[in-house]
C-alpha cells in the first residue's frame, strides 16, 4: 500500500491574506458562503491595476494578454501618463486647432518566419498600422516606416519585403512618406524588424469609444477568426502538422467605412491581433464596465483552423488575426451592418457573435455549443498547448 507523506499545509496565512475569519462561516444558515466571499475578492482583485512582479522581460509580456497589460501599465503608462494616452485605444485621438481630429498609431513587427502563407512582414507592417488608425474611425493616409536590419540580411529579401509594403500601401490608399534605417550586428534582429506609424483624419460625426457602448448592443466580428496565428505557427514548421491555412492580413480601412455607412451609430471598434477576439472583448468589458456575452455557435472559424486548434489545445478565441475587426453596434443597426459587411470581399463571413449586457460587469462569458457557459478570461501568458 503506497504511503503518503506528511500533510503539506498547516493552514498558515499567505502573504496577502485579508480574509475574514473562517469560523464565521461555520454553520451559518444565511449570509455569504465562503465561495461567494472568495469570488467577490477575485472580482475586486481584477479591478485593481495589473501588477508587474517580474524583474526581467519574458515572452509572456509580448503575448497581448495580462502580462502585456501589466508591463504597459507599470512601466509605460506610469512614466508617460497623460490624458491623450489614457484611453489606451488602438491609437491616439489628437484634436487639431482647426477642430478636426487626427488619429495617430504605431506598431512594431517582429514576426517569425518573415514570410508565411498569405503574406509577409511587409504586408503586416502596413496593414497593422492602417488598421489601428482605421479602428479609430479615421481614414489612414500617411505612414512612416523604420527598419532595423540585421547584418548579413540578403538585400534581395529586403527588396521583396519592401515591394510587399509598397503593394499593401497602394491597395490601402496610403503613402509611406518618411522612414529610417538602422543596421545591427548579426544575431540581433531576426533578419529585419519594422516599425510603422500612421495618421489619418477622423470624419466629423464619428464618435467611437468604450463609453459609447450600451446594454443591448450587438457584438460583430468581420469574418473568420484564428487564421493568421495558426498560419504563422504552422509555417514555423516545428509541428508535424500542415494545413491549408493562410494569414488573413488585409487593410481594413475600406471595410470600416462600409460598416460606418451602414451603421452610423457604431459604438466601438478594435482589431483582434495578438491575444485574439477574447482579449479585445475583455478590454471592452473592462473599459465599458459592462458584460460581453458571446455565443460559441455563432463564432465563424474555418474547419482547418478549428482542427489545428483542437489538436494543439489552443482556443481560437485567443489566436491573432491580422485582417479582422470586432465592432459593437446598436441592436437596430446590427442586421444592416452584417449585410453590408458580407457584401464586401473582406467581410464575407461577418457575423453577430454576441451582445452587451449590464451584468455581470467587466467580464466576458461564452455560451457553449453544448448548452453550458464558461468565462473567457484574459490570456495569462502565451497560449500554451495542453500535453494530454
Amino acid at each position, binding site marked *: 500500500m503506497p504511503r*503518503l507523506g506528511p500533510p503539506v*499545509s498547516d493552514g498558515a*496565512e*499567505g502573504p496577502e491574506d485579508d480574509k475574514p475569519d473562517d469560523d464565521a462561516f461555520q454553520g451559518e444558515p444565511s449570509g455569504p458562503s465562503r465561495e461567494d466571499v472568495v469570488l467577490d475578492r477575485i472580482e475586486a482583485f481584477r479591478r485593481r491595476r495589473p501588477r508587474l512582479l517580474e524583474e526581467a522581460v519574458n515572452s509572456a509580456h509580448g503575448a497581448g494578454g495580462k*502580462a502585456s497589460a501589466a508591463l504597459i501599465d507599470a512601466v509605460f503608462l506610469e512614466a508617460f501618463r497623460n490624458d491623450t494616452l489614457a484611453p489606451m485605444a488602438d491609437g491616439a485621438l489628437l484634436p487639431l486647432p482647426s477642430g478636426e481630429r487626427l488619429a495617430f498609431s504605431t506598431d512594431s513587427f517582429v514576426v517569425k518566419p518573415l514570410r508565411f502563407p498569405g503574406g509577409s512582414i511587409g504586408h503586416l507592417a502596413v496593414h497593422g498600422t492602417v488598421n489601428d488608425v482605421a479602428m479609430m474611425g479615421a481614414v489612414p493616409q500617411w505612414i512612416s516606416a523604420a527598419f532595423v536590419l540585421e547584418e548579413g540580411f540578403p538585400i534581395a529579401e529586403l527588396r521583396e519585403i519592401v515591394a510587399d509594403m509598397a503593394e499593401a500601401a497602394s491597395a490601402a490608399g496610403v503613402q509611406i512618406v518618411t522612414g529610417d534605417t538602422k543596421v545591427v550586428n548579426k544575431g540581433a534582429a531576426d533578419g529585419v524588424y519594422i516599425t510603422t506609424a500612421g495618421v489619418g483624419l477622423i470624419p466629423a460625426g464619428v464618435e467611437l469609444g468604450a463609453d459609447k457602448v450600451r446594454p443591448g448592443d450587438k457584438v460583430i466580428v468581420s469574418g473568420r477568426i484564428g487564421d493568421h496565428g495558426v498560419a504563422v505557427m504552422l509555417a514555423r514548421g516545428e509541428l508535424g502538422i500542415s494545413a491549408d491555412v493562410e494569414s488573413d492580413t488585409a487593410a481594413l480601412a475600406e471595410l470600416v467605412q462600409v460598416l460606418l455607412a451602414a451603421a452610423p451609430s457604431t459604438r466601438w471598434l478594435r482589431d483582434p491581433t495578438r491575444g485574439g477576439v477574447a482579449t479585445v472583448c475583455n478590454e471592452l468589458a473592462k473599459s465599458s464596465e459592462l458584460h460581453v456575452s458571446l455565443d460559441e455557435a455563432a463564432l465563424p472559424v474555418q474547419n482547418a483552423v478549428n*482542427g489545428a486548434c483542437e489538436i494543439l489545445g489552443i482556443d481560437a478565441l485567443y489566436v491573432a488575426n491580422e485582417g479582422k475587426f470586432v465592432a459593437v453596434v446598436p441592436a437596430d443597426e446590427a442586421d444592416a451592418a452584417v449585410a453590408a459587411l458580407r457584401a464586401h470581399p473582406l467581410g464575407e463571413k461577418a457575423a453577430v457573435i454576441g451582445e452587451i449586457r449590464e451584468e*455581470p460587469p467587466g467580464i466576458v462569458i461564452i455560451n*457553449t455549443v453544448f448548452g*453550458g457557459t464558461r468565462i473567457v478570461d484574459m490570456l495569462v501568458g502565451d497560449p500554451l498547448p495542453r*500535453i494530454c
Partner: protein
Amino acid sequence: MKFVDEYRDPAAARVAIAEITALGGDDHLKFMEVCGGHTHTIYKHGIENVLPESIELVHGPGCPVCVIPMGRVDDGIAIAETPGVIFTSFGDMMRVPGSNGNLLEAKARGADVRMVYSPLDALRIARDNPDRQVVFFAIGFETTAPSTAVTLLKAREAGIMNFSVFGNHVLIVPPLRAILDSPDLRLNGFIGPGHVSTVIGNRPYRFVPAEYGLPLVTAGFEPLDILQAIVMLLRQLREGRCEVENQYARAVRDEGNLKALAILREVFEVRPHFEWRGLGFISQSALKLTEAFAPWDAELRFSVPGVRVADPKACQCGEVLKGVIKPWDCKVFGTACTPETPIGTCMVSSEGACAAYYNYGRFTKTTAARIPVRSA
C-alpha cells in the same frame, strides 16, 4: 464523421441530461474525475451547469504537470542553465514555479529553453545540433511515457548520444489508491482517465470496485463522453452493480495497448518512491530509465541539486488535488495565488483544478441564477 461536432451535439446532450436527471433523483452524488483533460473539458464546455444540482463533480490529481514538486522543477532549471544545453519541454511545464522562478524566466535569463510538442521533436533538435547537449523534460502518466520510450529507442538505434531524458513520468494507480485511502473523502464513483487507459487498458482499475466498492467508468474527452460516463455510473448505482466499465471504447481496449506496454517495460522501471506535489512521497509511483538506457539519462549525465523543496506553507494544492477541498476553500486562492502569480501547480496548468475554476468557472456559481442558461 468530424468527431468534434458529433460529440458536442446539444440534442444528444439533452437526452443524456434527461436520463441523468431521472436516474440521479434527489440523491446528492459525488463523482471524481481524475484526468486533467477531463477537468479541462468540463470547464471548457460548462458541463457543470448543465448537470442537475444533485450531481457534483470533484476534480482529482490527474494533472501530471500539477504533481511535479518544486525540487524537480529546480533540477530541470539547473540542467537548462548548464552551458551548452538545449532544454526542451512541453509548454505546460514552462510556467510551473520552482523555488526560484520557472523555465520561462530561466529562458529570459539566457537559458536555451525550447517548447516542443513531442519528444521526437527534441530528438530532431539533437540530431540538428550535434555540438550541443539536448535534454527532454519528460512528464506525464503512462499516457506520454510510451512516446518518450520510442524516442529513446530511436536515439539508441541512430546512435544519437547528445540527447538525454530528464524523466518524471508518473503512474496513475498509486495516486488513485492514495485518494481512496484518504479518510476525508466521500465519493460515489469515478470517471476514469481517458488517455492513460488507451495505454494501460481498464484492468488496472479493477481494484477500485473490488477493494473499495466504487464503480469506475473510463471516459473520453468530448462533453458527450463525460455525460454518457455519468449515465453509466448512475445506472450501476441504481442497478446495484459495481464494476469497471468502458465508455471510451472507440479508443480504449480492456487489455490496453500491448505494444506500448512492451516498449515501456523495455525502457523504464519503477522508482522505489517519488515525491508528488501536495501528496508527499508515494512508493512505486514513478518511472526511471533502465540500466540499458543509462547513457541517455539526464539525471546521470548532469549534476542536479536534487534538493527536496517543501511546498510554500500557504499552499493547499495537496488537499485540492485529493478533492478534499474545492479551489475556493484554499486560503490563498484568488489572492496570493492566481494564474499570473501561481503558488501551487493547481493554478499553473490549464488542467489544474484551481486554474480551471479561476479562468472558467467562477462566474457560474454566483450568477447562474441571473443569467439564463440556454434552454436545454
